[in-house]
């Protein structure tokens, strides 16, 4: 808990040189996490409702990022593999749902089936490619997963063509909540956030209470030692890899109705997911969660408050975090 308080005070300290402005007294009045983000609060005519709506948008984006990033951080934390193909898994998930929707016409059935397929794909890749490389240099794994990206992208083109598709929002979730006189918020987006929370809670439970979780925690804190204790054998790794792949795929599936399904959708999410897990500390699921929320909020508010620097903001944030804590927020010092 003490660490957490320390984190926020230092962030406020970091913020000052960047947004030094006499008018931004707001940070002093707002609780920790909102400080840095609301520093532009009085600079622009943004009323409190809009501010809250943007927080909602940021948190929802953060949830989506967490889904993708948690798989990535799991795979790295336990297996030590930098999986560049993670974005491709996200894309495959989305295309699978599109394809299955054409057959079943039911989003929930499609997602369930698609998760099963993703698990099999993940398992197959681990068994037939990645498992040969555990004793090799990390760079070989990077190269291998890069090769996988090329193959997956091309397979997508062969199987589904280059059109973009949309996936229908299920009838039951097609309504919306009125936020302001002009703006409504779709139920489906709330549903996504809810599902992400479920996954986060599920992971919290698994990591805190189960044997697999114990291995994951051990792996994140000291991978070599964990391996030396004989944990690395076969099926644990296979299980983790296919779970990670399924998580990325699930993000693509559940996001498909709002994001549409299009070629190259995985590339965009890949880099930002890496940013998330690096900020949070690689291997730490808690870190991935905090990192995802930070990026989600920073990106959302950055776009509105500092449009000229919008694209740079997430990278600035990452650079600042790494300058301050080279191992990320929740990473163990090397």
């Amino acid at each position, binding site marked *: 808990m003490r660490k957490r308080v320390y984190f926020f005070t230092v962030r406020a300290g970091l913020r000052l040189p960047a947004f030094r402005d006499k008018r931004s007294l707001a940070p002093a009045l707002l609780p920790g996490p909102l400080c840095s983000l609301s520093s532009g609060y009085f600079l622009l005519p943004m009323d409190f409702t809009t501010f809250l709506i943007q927080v909602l948008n940021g948190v929802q984006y953060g949830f989506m990022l967490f889904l993708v990033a948690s798989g990535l951080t799991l795979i790295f934390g336990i297996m030590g593999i930098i999986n560049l193909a993670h974005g491709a898994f996200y894309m495959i998930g989305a295309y699978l749902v599109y394809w299955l929707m054409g057959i079943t016409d039911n989003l929930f059935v499609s997602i369930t089936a698609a998760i099963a397929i993703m698990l099999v794909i993940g398992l197959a890749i681990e068994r037939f490619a990645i498992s040969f490389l555990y004793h090799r240099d990390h760079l070989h794994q990077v190269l291998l997963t890069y090769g996988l990206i090329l193959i997956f992208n091309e397979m997508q083109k062969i199987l589904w*063509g280059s059109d*973009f*598709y949309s996936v229908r929002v299920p009838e039951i979730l097609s309504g919306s909540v009125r936020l302001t006189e002009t703006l*409504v918020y779709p139920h489906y987006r709330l549903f996504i956030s809810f599902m992400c929370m479920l996954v986060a809670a599920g992971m919290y439970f698994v990591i805190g209470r189960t044997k697999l979780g114990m291995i994951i925690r051990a792996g994140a804190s000291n991978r070599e030692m964990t391996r030396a204790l004989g944990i690395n054998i076969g099926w644990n790794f296979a299980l983790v890899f296919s779970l990670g792949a399924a998580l990325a795929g699930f993000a693509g599936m559940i996001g498909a109705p709002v994001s549409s399904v299009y070629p190259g959708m995985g590339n965009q999410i890949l880099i930002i997911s890496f940013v998330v897990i690096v900020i949070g500390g690689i291997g730490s699921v808690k870190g991935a969660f905090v990192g995802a929320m930070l990026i989600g909020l920073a990106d959302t508010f950055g776009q509105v408050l500092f449009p000229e620097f919008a694209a740079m903001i997430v990278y600035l944030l990452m650079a600042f975090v790494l300058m301050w804590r080279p191992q990320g927020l929740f990473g163990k010092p090397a």
Partner: protein
Amino acid sequence: MSNMSDNSRRRFIKGAGALAGLTAVSSFVPVRFAIGATAPVKIGILLPYSGTYAMLGNSITDAMKLRIAQAGDKLGGRAVEYIAIDSEMSVPKAPTNTNKLIKKNNVDFIVGPVHSGIAAAMAKIIGKRKTPIMIVPNAGSNAVTGPLCAPNIFRTSFSNWQPAYPGGELMAKEGHKTAVTISWKYGAGIQMMAAGKEAFEKGGGKVVREILIPFPKVNFQAHLAEIASLKPDAVFSFFSGGGAAKFLKDYAAAGLKDKITLYGPGFLTEGVAKAAGAAAEGIKTTLHYADTLDNAANKAFRAAYKKATGKAANVFAVQGYDTGSLLIQALDAVKGDAGATADLIKAMEVAVIDSPRGSWKMSKAHNPIQDIYVRQVENGEQKLLGVAAKQLEDPAKGCKMV
């Protein structure tokens, strides 16, 4: 690895044997054909077949091939060979790919690209040379028929200014006083928003916020909330391909569609009917084409395209189709002698294209002089409402040929 000997393009055409430089697969048919006849006309294609704009590349290619197939797969009496390269939307790769088509494949024409950054890189290389002739079937970068214009560079599509300017006019004409512009931050987006704003403010309106999103990001939520809090009368927007579908859906899902009227150059609703569905219904845009244009060429084209590809035609297909028409007219004029560049260029300059979009011809800067239509989406179709600008010509600022 094919390691072919250096040969000039002219010699290449005359000596069918020189075809040996091609890979076995692609050269097999032409070599056989070349016996006792002339070698095929070579058309290099540099378009995106992957990524956000893949649909555009495919529509253009399919329609161009369809048009040439309708003419018996012959150009000026000679067979045709297509050499297509996926541009991957990569600007750094553009010089290599262009050089490959020119120097390795010795093409007579280069058709491409979609992306304006690649167009600039290509125009830089090709404009300095006499051959080949470049035909831009989409990229609207004002510069291509502006400062970078050259005798051997033609465009069959539009300049970014063309469909955007009447869009701004329309917005003002329909009584809107304030507007927000939103687009991607790259050449096409910036230029179209500027043209729309110019026209809108000339008509008495006021642009209250200009939002530019890094290309090709599709996370619009924050900006939609911003628009909702600004409450303008209208929104003027350019997105294309997958991004357009996503924007329309998000705009509708945020409840803005019925409150703040959405306008834009027609790319916003072009080819996205299936993906955007109800979210696109009723939106008015301006473009050089509408699905329901009542002319014989359009009806025949739409039927033929549907039959050939199974898909409904869109403006990109029209542009590809017209590229085919232009090639046919030009090579007929020189009786297939693709080496007679000066005559070819002359033929292309005077060509009148009987297009599905209505007949048009080239301006002095080699950009179409064309009608811009007001269209509205109805049942997934771009329905014609009227003409926004008759025979509109791009100002071609900075072009030395004007």
